[in-house]
């Protein structure tokens, strides 16, 4: 059967290789069981698959930049354009208040637009993540949570690329961060990630069965900036309404982020706590839905 012209690779014997790659001793024994009833995030397994996660993120980032003519420039153009429209319409014509500390309106708006833009891309990406990776889901095993997780990491790249524009505005309007609280800024982005990951878990699992999801998201994303304080400072609206908006974790994200990087008004602690609590509930609930429908992904897709 074997032909002499087929030069097949001759790998080292298994024992020699084992010594070199002894890292994964733990998973040498794989036990396959019916799906567990209680949803959980298997962190050690996710850690084991970290290279795949990194590779999938890298794939999505590089494909997107390769497929678009302007490539990485979009990460700057989209938030700048959005912020410019907001500044003209809401800042100039409608004279929206810039908050307690009277932060320069353009800085205020761009500082809101960047996390919002992140959230919007992450939500769209993560809710489509299972459906757009069908080929992988039906052909190879890896923790499925990796797909929504990867797609909330991908838009972080755009976010980072957009940051210099904010820094330029900070320089122009002299709205520099004040003191070490700027170090807390990443925590608010983390809050946005937790929120969008929870929603992403839920929506990607639902999207496997009901393709309605892809029509719902744009509508939701159109309303969301209005309800998150992107084009106004949340402390400038009536207190009663502030507490209503507090149930939207993005309100806490944007207020906190502005406070940390622009030295804007200190967010209300109670309102922030509500935002964090809602984000955690969304995360746990989303994960529960995802994990409980996970066994059916490969069967129903």
């Amino acid at each position, binding site marked *: *059967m*074997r*032909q002499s012209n*087929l*030069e*097949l*690779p*001759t*790998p*080292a*014997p*298994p024992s020699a*290789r084992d010594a070199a*790659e002894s*890292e*994964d001793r733990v998973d*040498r*024994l*794989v*036990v*396959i*069981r*019916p*799906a567990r009833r209680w949803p959980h995030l298997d962190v050690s397994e996710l850690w084991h698959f970290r*290279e*795949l996660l990194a*590779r999938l993120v890298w*794939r999505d980032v*590089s*494909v997107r930049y*390769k*497929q678009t003519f302007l490539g990485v420039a979009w990460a700057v153009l989209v938030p700048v354009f959005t912020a410019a429209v907001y500044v003209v319409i809401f800042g100039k014509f409608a004279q929206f208040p810039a908050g307690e500390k009277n932060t320069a309106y353009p800085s205020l708006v761009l500082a809101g637009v960047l996390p919002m833009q992140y959230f919007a891309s992450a939500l769209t990406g993560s809710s489509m993540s299972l459906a757009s990776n069908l*080929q*992988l*889901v*039906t*052909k*190879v*095993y*890896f923790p499925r949570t990796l797909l929504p997780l990867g797609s909330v990491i991908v838009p972080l790249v755009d976010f980072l690329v957009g940051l210099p524009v904010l820094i330029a505005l900070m320089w122009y309007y002299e709205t520099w961060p004040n003191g070490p609280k700027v170090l807390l800024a990443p925590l608010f982005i983390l809050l946005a990630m937790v929120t969008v990951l929870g929603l992403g878990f839920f929506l990607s699992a639902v999207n496997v*069965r*009901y*393709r*309605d999801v892809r029509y719902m998201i744009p509508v939701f994303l159109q309303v969301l900036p209005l309800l998150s304080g992107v084009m106004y400072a949340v402390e400038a609206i009536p207190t009663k309404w502030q507490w209503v908006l507090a149930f939207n974790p993005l309100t806490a994200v944007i207020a906190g982020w502005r406070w940390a990087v622009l030295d804007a008004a200190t967010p209300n602690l109670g309102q922030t706590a509500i935002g964090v609590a809602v984000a955690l509930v969304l995360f746990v609930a989303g994960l529960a839905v995802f994990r409980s429908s996970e*066994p*059916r992904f*490969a*069967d*129903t*897709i």
Partner: protein
Amino acid sequence: MAIAIEAYELSKKYRLGEMQAAYGTLRESLSHAARRVARQEHRVTAKEEIWALRDVSFEVPEGQVLGVIGRNGAGKSTLLKVLTRITTPTSGRVEIRGRVGSLLEVGTGFHPELTGRENIYLNGTILGMKRKEIERRFDAIVDFSGIERFIDTPVKRYSSGMYVRLAFSVAAHLEPEIMLVDEVLAVGDAEFQRRCLGRMEEFGSEGRTVLFVSHMLSSIGQLCDRALQINGGMIVQDGPPGEVIANYLHQTHSAGVEQSWDSVDEAPGNDLVRIVAVRVLPHEGMPLGIVDVRRPIGIEIVFRVLREGQPVFPKIKVLDRESTIAFNAMDTDERWLEPTPPGEYAATAWIPGNLLNEGAVSAEVAICSLDFPKLEHHASVYEAVSFEVLDSGEGDTARGTFGGQWRGVVRPLLEWTRERV
């Protein structure tokens, strides 16, 4: 010897209703739910259930090459999906000891926008290789694929042949201790199939454990130490590949490779002649019942002439899978012209090589005499024997290296001429 794979009472149930709802819309589900509430119905219809696997238990010792065969829908693909963890079992458990690599297709996750180099890393990672492993084998993978010049070209510009070569090259450099392989690997041209099988053979000879799902019986016969047959989600046979395949062919073709009658009185025939045995002569190096399309196929008929009466001679009728008659043939040699003396005779019909098409073939045999204008059948056995004709894909048959479907009852290797006009 240590056990590499241990499956214990593995079952997998599919609900048909669930599968139908897969592409439904939210509205359908909501209206369905609303109706259910309104009419206080618990379940509109009991969802139909299918057990794709039912209490499957087996062990695979380390270093064994195990083949799994079965008809379409028998459950062999489900078994592989459970073992590769693409889907979860409904009940039961499996323990797998060792680094597992699974190959359900080549080029999983290849992205057309990415270059060959980038896809090697992507695909390698998806198949479970670490970055360092890929780096170490990168040059070997590229060499093996033979596409060095295009390694930095996006794969969307590759020809399909280049694409498959690169994809296979990555897969060929996987070095797991346990390999789970699907038959879909065997699509593509004959050259590619040969490479796949060659690689699998190597896996086996290196002492790795291989579980190979296929309905290519010849490769199971050649590569495996042991074979399982699955039918209706259950293991119905477990043993040496030759035996399992022979029994499997017997079930699928309703006739085996051999039939014989111990008592002459019960053997088919009349008071003149009775057929006592019919068999397909084995091809050396092939499992019983599988014959190489290139080699002549011998069908032996053993019959006993009970009294001297008239000239009798053997005849065969060859039919394909759909029971279409391929041909009839009888021995017209003058040795049968005289009345045949009583005694036992063995006549072998030799069907030339490169005549029948691939697939299941059955033969009907008879002992006849010519009673002009009638052909009288003194003894006949309908569906006496059956066998499987195989093309090993080495390119020297009528299909060349083409790997796709090849129609026709017969498939002669013609002589072609070419002139310049």
